[in-house]
């Protein structure tokens, strides 16, 4: 049985290597653009036009001209891949009301006929954007608080319940930082935007991260009374190996489904799925390589300030509600 727990410093280092570039990207992005991510219109307001033309021939200049009269903010105009020979453009700009949007569409239609059946327009005012951003902030706070509380409740019968709770929360933060970092980096390099669905992905990752930690901690709590003579580290390591098949099989199944959506599904939710997948991967990693090593480090007094808070004793524990 390879001792995974022994290598914990390496795993902490790997986590740091993954998380720090993301943190750096978030700081850099905040300094340069005022926000840690590229915010989508969901949070800041604005318009996205996915325009489809029946014929080829319209140019970026034509499109900019059509918008010029109404949209003073800098427009982003991008030509999309031509999958079926039609001309598709994506335009981002400020929030406009119906009348102005209609005039723009009429102008475009006069230059090159629009294919309205394949055109999509999303518009969100700044007021609504600000409200969604505020609700998002509250949702993250509420979710973190409730889940932390749940973990502490779920582990209340284990000796040193607080350690388990805090380690699971640390793993949860680890995963959230990983996905936020990835979103920030992808925003800087590939223009990925953070929208309401991104927040959904983050909270789902949070839930599944806890799920992984709970399964692993459950096993540790069950093994403690069964291997009374063994050092804590060995018991923990045994527990990881006993649950690793489950972790891998579950991760593999999640991968199958998400890969299918990424490869064969619609365009609009691909970023959502990619973020979700990275988060679930990180969730499995962090429960094994962050939460559990933290438990052991704490037990061995390796964490400054926390080392004096009593020792974990392999106290005999009734295996009551688990059997």
């Amino acid at each position, binding site marked *: 049985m390879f001792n995974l727990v022994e290598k914990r410093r390496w795993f902490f280092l790997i986590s740091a290597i993954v998380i720090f570039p993301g943190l750096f990207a978030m700081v850099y992005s905040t300094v340069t653009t005022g926000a840690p991510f590229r915010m989508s219109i969901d949070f800041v307001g604005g318009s996205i036009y996915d325009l489809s033309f029946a014929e080829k021939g319209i140019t970026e200049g034509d499109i900019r001209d059509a918008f010029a009269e109404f949209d003073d903010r800098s427009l982003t105009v991008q030509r999309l891949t031509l999958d079926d020979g039609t001309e598709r453009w994506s335009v981002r700009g400020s929030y406009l009301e119906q009348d102005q949007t209609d005039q723009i569409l009429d102008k475009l239609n006069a230059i090159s006929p629009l294919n309205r059946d394949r055109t*999509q327009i*999303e518009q969100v005012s700044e007021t609504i954007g600000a409200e969604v951003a505020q*609700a998002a902030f509250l949702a993250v706070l*509420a979710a973190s608080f409730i889940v932390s509380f749940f973990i502490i409740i779920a582990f209340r019968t284990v000796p040193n319940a607080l350690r388990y709770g805090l380690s699971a929360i640390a793993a949860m933060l680890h995963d959230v930082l990983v996905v936020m970092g990835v979103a920030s980096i992808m925003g800087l390099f590939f223009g990925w935007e953070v929208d309401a669905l991104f927040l959904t992905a983050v909270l*789902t990752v949070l839930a599944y991260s806890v799920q992984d930690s709970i399964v692993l901690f459950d096993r540790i709590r069950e093994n403690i009374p069964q291997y009374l003579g063994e050092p804590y580290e060995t018991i923990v390591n045994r527990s990881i190996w006993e649950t690793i*098949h*489950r972790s891998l099989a579950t991760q593999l*199944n999640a991968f199958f489904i998400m*890969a299918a959506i990424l490869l*064969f599904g619609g365009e609009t939710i691909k970023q959502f799925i990619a973020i979700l997948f990275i988060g679930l991967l990180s969730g499995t990693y962090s429960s094994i390589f962050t939460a559990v090593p933290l438990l052991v480090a704490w037990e061995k007094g390796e964490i400054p300030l926390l080392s004096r808070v009593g020792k974990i004793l392999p106290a005999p524990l009734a295996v009551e509600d688990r059997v």
Partner: protein
Amino acid sequence: MASHYRWLAVILLLVAFCVWVSLPDTTGLDWNNDGELDLVVEQKLGLDLVGGVRVLLEAQLPPGSFTIEDLQRAADNVNKRVNGLGLTEATVQVQGDRRILVELPGVTNKKQAVDTIKATALLEFVDFAGIPGVGNLDDTRILTNQQDQLLKARGEQASADLRRRPDTGQPFTTILTGADLQSASAQYDAKTGRFFIAVKLNDSAAATFSSFTGSRVGQPMAIVLDSTVLSAPVIQSQLGSDFVIQGNFTQDEANSLALQLRSGALPIPLREEAASDVGATLGQESVNLSIRAGIIGVVVVLAFMVLYYRVPGIAAALALIVFALMNFAAYKLIPVTLTLPAITGFLISIGTAVDGNILIFERVKEEIRAGKPLGMALDLGFSRAWGSIRDSNISTIIICVVLFFFGQTPGASVVSGFAITLILGLVINLFTAVIVTRTFLYLLAAWLQKPLSEKKWLLGA
């Protein structure tokens, strides 16, 4: 053993019911044969899948200057207009204390639909008689005493751009408003080739109007819609309850004006705060792509489970099919509006459903490796894995509840679809991962007792 057969019967009945509900043609059930459906099932598809228009309208008034009843009345009028446009699948709901969300599946002409819905449609008949220097005011915006009162009630000042009486500088006098109409319809005059609105006044208004027009024959009167003069005809003779309104209407304009007059003026002016307009073809493509992706993903998962866990894998695969059917049926029974995020929520919940089975099977394998006989290994596997399955599902359900509330924010509504299907999946999974899988697995184990105890590889161990 008998209890497993009982469960099998329950499961088979449940499956039959779910298959029936999920059939595309099923619309409901009429228990007592009174011709009305007592159980209604319907598949609701979101705008991102069928195409259509969604608009979030916000009251264009300061908070406190109108009541929630005013907003509800505005929503009712919007609803009448939407129904008048023939959009039966549309939904109109009040959101919070100052917004109305309108969803119009299948609408392709957003401009016409939204213009019809959000127009205040305050129609007024205004006295122009004896006012010197009025001239031709067609298409200009004027201030009437009716509007002046409305503005004052809200604590606002009338814009200086609105024309007032040239002789006194006071607002023009309103004689009647659209609220006094009994009916309104768009009609076509073949002689002039123009559309006009035929209106009928209610009885008390007809008396007022009759005495007014009787005393002002030869004088002008203005017909004003939302402050804009439609026309200012000269009164030719005393008018009764039925007359026509002429203007430069196209057929569409005449139709929507008649509809607005029938449904009444909005008590609150509305402004667009967010809108989404999805082409119908794009929606159809999304449906096709999602179905294909979902099927491929699920088939790979089923194959993996059978290959990796063998006989238990077969039980899990069967349980997963039951799981999917129960979800599909739930979507139509509740009903859940399916959107792309909602479909994703379902697919993610499949991952969790399988995880429940994996937890159990890994436990069973461990117990068999530890030398326990098959029956005991199965019992221990299910009972020991239950705690983990329950706790881990609960944490995800909690998060989904938070997500659901976040999705109630106007502008984040895509999120609630994901949360609802994921919660449903998790709850249904607590039943299928344990009861359904256990029934199938015990029955398979009973039928294949000999080979299973001799050939451990059949259990994936």
